[in-house]
């Protein structure tokens, strides 16, 4: 059911874009919606981040899995249990760039039916790495349609990505790896019973969106050729704030663009907000130095404290009378 | 017990499989087309070189120059990078397997024009991993597809005649141009990293012309008939006629490649 809802939504988005393109609603689907989507994306993300950073983090709560820095002769594990900001930064970098925690994915098995053993399960990590890194390269590659002249790093990336001259136009390596990654991530949700059980429509929807964007992109490049110059004209005009919609752009492009717009606008309100959230995870971005540094509760207000000295001062005569020990004897008059 | 039998089986299977280590590629090579013979090609273009007539340097130069201009062949001064489709070598080097101690020096020092032999059973075609070079069935020319070549140079190791040249660098700066900086021919230049060689002027044959070298030597006084080009499968062609009437030789025939450039005189 969740799958069908998500699939239906993604197909519907694509169909709407196609229909919009076919019906000549180029202004709506080529200018207004992408522009709004970008604003919603940036604005929504900014609000989200503001909300997160405004929430106090009273305690250091990094989750650690290595030796903490303590005595000199005990070797600390700096990345698993960071002690300083720099070390926490290193840990974050490994998490953001290498998805390190996914490498801890293990699979439990009974060996010969009597002993429990674990094995590394690399599938999720590999699928995620393929999908995310390919997506980044693909996004940067798309700058060729949004800049004129095209910056050198885009040209270089494009040349490296299309290094293998397979087909004409050449198939990009990241096209293949991206589709493979997304397909794996989807297949995993379908075939793994545990993952399937916890998957909601909101888990499937972005994957279907990504798959739809990828497939329509492949279609436009390799099969149903589209007028790439007209598309670039549209994109450039958008980024120059003087939108103009050229004639003759294929409806598939509007489907592709609408899918991308929906994904963009959907990000701040969905699980994909992890792209910002990962930086703000208190279990990951803090140094575990509670024993070395005093952290004061940020919203600490002055508590009225009645110390023992004051207590004794107030009741000393009564205490002496009752024969209780006092720290400071009564002054003799 | 059961375990032992499985091990026994493994042992036998392994030993048997060990023998397969060499068998697979061998079988494949055996199944591969054994080149084309003349009967397999509908026609076979061939060339007859008259050694007497090409002793005139003007004739040789005309042939080489025509070739270079027709195919935009670069002139790279470094002999180790030079591209050559048709070149001049001495008799003793070209026919190394046919010389003997009693031959007079002037015989050994005679100049010979050498080019691709468009072999009947070309080793270069056999080894090419991408079919970038192949024997054309329609007329027996050993063709080269510059779009397909990966530049592995296996064909150069396989050619027993040294007829192939590799583009070690971009050839364009070394190609002859006219006063306006334009190339002398529309024949595509090559890019660095591909192998090239004589194509018997396949592009001219298509237009019903003779190879450029054959046409050029005819213009030189005394050069007529120095190079004769024709169809070897046609008994009435001039090459067939000459080879029937005159003693001829070809390069390294014992290798079984079946060269189709012949030498008389």
């Amino acid at each position, binding site marked *: 059911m969740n799958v069908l809802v998500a699939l239906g939504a993604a197909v519907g988005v694509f169909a709407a874009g196609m229909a919009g393109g076919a019906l000549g609603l180029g202004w709506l689907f080529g200018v207004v919606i992408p522009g709004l989507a970008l604003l919603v994306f940036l604005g929504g993300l900014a609000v989200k981040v503001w909300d997160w950073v405004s929430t106090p983090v009273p305690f250091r709560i990094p989750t650690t899995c290595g030796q903490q820095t303590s005595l000199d002769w005990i070797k600390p594990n700096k990345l698993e249990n960071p002690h300083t900001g720099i070390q926490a930064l290193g840990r974050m970098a490994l998490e953001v760039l290498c998805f390190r925690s996914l*490498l801890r994915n293990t699979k439990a*098995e009974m060996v010969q039916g009597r*002993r429990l*053993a*674990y*094995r*590394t399960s690399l599938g999720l990590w590999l699928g995620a790495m393929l999908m995310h890194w390919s997506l980044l390269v693909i996004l940067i590659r798309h700058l060729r349609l949004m800049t004129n002249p095209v910056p050198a790093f885009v040209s270089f990336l494009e040349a490296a990505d299309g*290094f293998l*001259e*397979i087909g004409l136009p050449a198939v990009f390596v990241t096209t293949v790896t991206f589709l493979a990654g997304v397909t794996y991530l989807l297949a995993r949700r379908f075939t793994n019973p545990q993952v399937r059980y916890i998957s909601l429509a909101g888990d499937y929807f972005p994957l279907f969106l990504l798959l739809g964007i990828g497939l329509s992109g492949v279609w436009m490049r390799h099969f149903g050729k589209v007028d790439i110059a007209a598309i670039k004209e549209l994109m450039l005009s958008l980024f120059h704030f003087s939108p103009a919609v050229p004639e003759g752009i294929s409806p598939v492009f509007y489907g592709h663009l609408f899918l991308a717009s929906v994904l963009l606008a959907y990000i701040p309100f969905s699980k994909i907000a992890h792209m910002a959230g990962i930086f703000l995870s208190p279990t990951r971005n803090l140094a575990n130095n509670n024993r070395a540094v005093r952290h004061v509760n940020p919203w600490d207000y002055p508590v009225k404290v009645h110390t023992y000295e004051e207590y004794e001062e107030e009741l000393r005569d009564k205490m002496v009378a009752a024969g209780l020990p006092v720290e400071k004897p009564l002054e003799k008059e | 017990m059961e375990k032992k039998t499985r*091990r026994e089986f493994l*042992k036998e*299977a*392994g*030993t048997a*499989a*060990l*023998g*397969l*280590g*060499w068998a*697979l*590629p061998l079988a*494949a*090579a055996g*199944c*591969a087309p054994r080149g084309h013979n003349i009967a397999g090609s509908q026609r076979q273009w061939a060339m007859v070189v008259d050694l007497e007539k090409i002793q005139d340097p003007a004739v040789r130069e005309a042939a080489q120059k025509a070739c270079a201009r027709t195919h935009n062949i670069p002139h790279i001064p470094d*002999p*180790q*990078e030079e591209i050559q489709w048709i070149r001049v*070598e001495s008799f003793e*080097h070209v026919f*190394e397997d046919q010389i003997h101690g009693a031959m007079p020096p002037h015989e050994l020092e005679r100049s010979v024009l*050498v080019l691709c032999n468009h072999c009947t059973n070309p*080793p270069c075609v*056999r*080894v090419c*991993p*991408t*079919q*970038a070079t192949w024997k054309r069935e329609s007329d027996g020319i050993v063709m080269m597809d510059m779009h*397909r*070549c*990966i*530049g*592995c*140079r*296996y064909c*150069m*190791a396989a*050619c027993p*005649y*040294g007829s192939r040249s*590799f583009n*070690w*660098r*971009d050839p364009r700066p070394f190609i002859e141009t006219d006063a306006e900086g334009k190339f002398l021919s529309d024949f595509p230049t090559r890019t*660095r*990293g*591909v192998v090239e060689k004589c194509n018997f002027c396949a592009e001219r044959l298509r237009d019903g012309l003779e190879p450029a070298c054959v046409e050029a030597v005819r213009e030189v006084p005394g050069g007529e008939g120095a190079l004769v080009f024709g169809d070897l499968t046609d008994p009435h062609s001039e090459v067939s006629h000459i080879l029937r009437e005159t003693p001829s030789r070809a390069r390294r025939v014992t290798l079984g490649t079946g060269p189709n450039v012949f030498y008389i005189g």
Partner: protein
Amino acid sequence: MLEAAFRGGGRYWALLGFWGLLVALGLGAWGRQFTEGLTVTGMSQDVTWGIYIAQFTFLVGVAASAVMVVLPYYLHNYKVFGRMVILGEGLAIAAVLMCMLFIFVDMGQPTRVANVLLHPTPNSMMFWDMVALGGYLVLNLLIGAVTFDAERREAPPPHWIKPIIVLSIPWAVSIHTVTAFLYSGLEARAFWMTAILAPRFLASAFASGPSLLILLALILRRFTRFDPGEEAIRKLALIVTYAMTVNIFFVGVELFTALYSDMPHHTYPFRYLYLGLHGHDSLVPWMWFGAALTVVCVTLLLVPRTRNDLRLLPFLCAGVILAIWIEKGVGLVITGFVPNPLGRITDYAPTGVEVAVTLGVYGFGFLVLSLLYKIVVNVRERMIPA
């Protein structure tokens, strides 16, 4: 399991850094070769293959030699090699990767490399070499990962891996055989066109590969708590001795055939190698050095007392590796082009760019090898009861 590759001390990271430096150097040099063309190499119209293809030939042997530990262990249940097998497979993986890279950097049009698979050509030995190498890489990765993971969990390996292991044995033989066929099927080059080339390749491979394995095992013994076993090392030394002896015999057979028949095209290459031909004698010192090294090493290996001396053994192994590297990595490929089809002799020496690219490929191979062995060592060290 993979994270075990990144658990190491300063010395380990320095080693990785060194390999990384070589890779960077090689990448830079290859970038120049890619933009300017192969003119930056020492190769020429006459000597069209040089140090790249020669290293490829040498390393195919190293890759194939894994069979020398896999076969006794799996087919003959020779338990002594139990801890050595994974080292052999790791070495095979690194060596095959280097082989593929050496072919790749030798190409004039590297961007078209996919053409070999897009237009498969069964009559070309180069096509088969690509298939054989690719298949061997997959086989070793699969076998190594599956069996080692099973070992780590102290579980028996899955049953389906057995036939794959059996398949890997002839496959190992085939990669070096096909590489020999690459050369020996060329009627144009008398030096290579000899039926004994494939057996010769295998004999020298089974000497150089296990020698490298012994060296690596000794290094691991010295610097880690993981010990592949003294008996295993001694057995490998015996294999090296036999293989090297057979190799000498094969070379002798070649020399006899060429020199006794005295056919010019068959004697020229040997004269070029050992005496110099028409004043071209750049390889002569190499070859005599290699020959002397071979004789010394084989003599000392044949004597049980010196062979079993674990202090002397690393030097003997290094000697064997160097001797075979000279035979295959220096002599074999270049000499095939001497003399050229027109009887001329062109000398070849690699340029700085070529050497840098070669070092880069080796750096990459040893980087992979270091990572793989680190995983093995870290996992094994944890399994040893303290």
